[in-house]
């Protein structure tokens, strides 16, 4: 029961506290609008390069929109604690670490889902992308799976925050890697084969492909394995992130280097 409370209420309160500056007005300016302008940039870049049509860029980048709040939101779970000088208190608390960090991952996932749906809906109107009605529910599922996998990567990013102070740099690095190699802006067949193979193991690749196929008229049965693969990638990153958090915490305690990072 205590862990459940930590997971839900604790996660919600902690996540809100990490963004003390955030209000609906700033949320729109810093999360919702940039996700749209980023998508528009790639749609026009796609038009300039004649590599793929608008639908390709809208579907992929709308799903990728979940990555920004996930990566930076999760990184803040460590960086924010350090900034407010409460990281040491968190580390000495008897609270279950998995419950604490998964609890913080839940609002990040919800945030990613909301951002992704918003981006998809507005971009579909702006760039006149028709989404078949029967694709809406599977598309929502693809968005949920992609947001989850981005948060998985975000958890790993958060764990690195115990070793390196510059979580903003790490978050940007991961985001840029997704922009380039998740098949969202550069079709995978244009990448070298080894890079294309590596792309299968990063978040967004399978979810974006599922979204593109759904928009093109594919049935749920056709994309269910892509959505499952996306969720699996997310689960692996989340597991690695939780383990890394624990390991880095133990190492920091042993070497008394928690605040040295």
């Amino acid at each position, binding site marked *: 029961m205590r862990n459940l409370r930590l997971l839900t209420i604790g996660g919600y309160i902690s996540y809100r506290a990490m963004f003390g500056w955030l209000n609906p007005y*700033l949320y729109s300016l*810093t999360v919702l609008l940039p996700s749209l302008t980023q998508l*528009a940039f790639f749609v*026009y870049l796609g038009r300039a390069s004649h590599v793929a049509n608008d639908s390709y860029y809208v579907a992929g980048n709308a799903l990728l929109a979940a990555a920004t709040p996930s990566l930076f939101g999760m990184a803040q779970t460590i960086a924010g604690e350090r900034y407010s000088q409460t990281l040491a208190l968190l580390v000495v608390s008897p609270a279950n670490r998995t419950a604490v960090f998964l609890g913080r991952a839940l609002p990040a996932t919800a945030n990613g889902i909301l951002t992704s749906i918003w981006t998809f809906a507005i971009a579909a109107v702006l760039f006149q992308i028709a989404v078949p009605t029967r694709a809406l529910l599977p598309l929502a599922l693809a968005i949920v799976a992609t947001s989850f996998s981005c948060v998985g990567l975000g958890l790993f990013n958060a764990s690195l925050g115990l070793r390196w102070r510059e979580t903003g740099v790490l978050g940007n690095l991961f985001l840029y890697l997704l922009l*380039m190699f998740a098949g969202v802006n550069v079709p995978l067949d244009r990448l070298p084969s080894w890079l294309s193979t590596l792309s299968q193991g990063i978040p967004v690749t399978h979810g974006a492909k599922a979204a593109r196929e759904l928009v093109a008229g594919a049935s749920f049965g056709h994309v269910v394995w892509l959505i499952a693969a996306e969720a699996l990638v997310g689960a692996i990153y989340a597991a690695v992130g939780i383990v890394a958090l624990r390991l880095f915490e133990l190492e920091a305690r042993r070497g008394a280097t928690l605040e040295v990072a």
Partner: protein
Amino acid sequence: MRTRARRLGGVLLLGLRVHFKMLSRSPFDLWVVVASPLIFATLAHFLFADDRGQKMLVAALASGVMGIWSSTTASGAGALQMQRRLGVLELLVASPMPFWSVLLPISVAISAIGIYSLAVGLVYVRLFFGIAITIHSWAAFAVAVPATIGAIGSLGFLFASALVRFRSASMVGNLFEWPVWMLCGLLIPVSVLPGWLQPVSWVFAPTWGMAALRNATLGTGHPWADIGMCAALAAVYLVAGALSLRLFLDAARARATLSLAS
């Protein structure tokens, strides 16, 4: 009068030097300016694979200008907030030198570390993609680089001045990153954009800076005219920024809210 001008010049130069050195040692700021050319030149390589050569050279320049702009939005808009966080904002405002002479070198230094961005972009495409770096007019290119940096830095100064009352100024500043990358003819030709959007790009310095660098490199258009536009826009940004700064500072002093922010 001459002594005052000399002092002002000294403050501007010293501020520029100190902040340039400080920023050159910040992992985050260096990352911002180094990552942009690597990422966007790589993207251009994969997207424009069928049309190499001049297009990749222009992409390298564009990704460098993107880095300058990225640095300006990431750090420039929040430059005042940083002084507030360090606890020196009141001291700087109360100092005998006009406050704009303190803020301007910070803003220009933030853009000036974008010089790394240009260098990394050009070296990267030369080493990894074998693109020959041929500059048609070195004189125009050599003037275009500081003109672009100065104009974008002045725009950063305007942002910092306008956002002085926002506690989350740096977050709001990020809002302008992608739109300017899209509008200013960097990787995306302005002709691809809808007609009504194209005139919007004219008010942003990166448009003219990029045009100057591209034309000086390829020997097309009128690079000196583009450099002139950079200088004209920089003057407009500086005047608007100084006025905005004065307005906000007067209000903050009257209400004793300088250390507070909405």
